[in-house]
């Protein structure tokens, strides 16, 4: 079975992202869910044999995948996957990676609107799911 490893820096990247989400949104449970999603996205990427995307501005042999707005850079060695970086593409990715930005925020075409709406719908569903326990807690107080 293929192994998945993370470099210490990739772990630090993920920690910083989760801390940022926890602080900026004030909801640690959202941060934890997103961390879990990122971890599972890497596992699924390897399991389903998804295509390994490359970019000229990534180090040689590195590939990347996107999960929502987070870019996960990794290296594949003999079927094993090693995560190298996790980056919030909307915040920390240099402008040089314009094509990634376009993948996240596509030009205003009809097809792009459909993609954007799907992302918004998924975000809304996640937000509702996060809010549900709080509503239930409030009800118990009332």
């Amino acid at each position, binding site marked *: 079975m293929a*192994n*998945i*490893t*993370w*470099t*210490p*820096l*990739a*772990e630090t*990247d*993920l*920690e910083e992202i*989760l*801390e940022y989400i*926890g*602080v900026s949104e*004030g909801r*640690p449970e959202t*941060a*934890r869910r997103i*961390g*879990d999603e990122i*971890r599972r996205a890497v596992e699924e990427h390897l399991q389903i044999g998804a295509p390994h995307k490359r970019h000229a501005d*990534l*180090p040689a042999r*590195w590939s990347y995948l996107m999960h929502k707005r987070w870019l996960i*850079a990794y*290296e594949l060695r003999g079927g094993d996957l*090693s*995560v*190298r*970086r996790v*980056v919030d593409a909307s915040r*920390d*990715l*240099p*402008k*040089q990676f*314009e094509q990634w*930005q376009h993948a996240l925020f596509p030009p205003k075409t009809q097809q792009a609107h459909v993609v954007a709406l799907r992302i918004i719908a998924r975000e809304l569903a996640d937000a509702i799911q996060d809010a549900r326990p709080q509503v239930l807690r409030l009800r118990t107080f009332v």
Partner: protein
Amino acid sequence: MSTVQSTEFNQFCDFLVQIRNSGAAELTPEQSVQRFREEQEKLRIWNERNAISQAQADRGEAKPLDFDALWNRVSQRLAERGVAK
């Protein structure tokens, strides 16, 4: 005032073209330079951290992710910063 290196000047031109083509908010020349410097800094950090991560991998330091341990560290820092569980 130091002379701008030609490569940096070309990068700045490319940056301006990107800004214009992306239809981003209009920037004054001063703001354009500031934004360019910010992007340069992002790129420097990006490359620096990529190199660190690659070096760690080359030294065999990559290991399976212990997500629960990672989350405990994050959770502790959030608590220290006053973010409730």
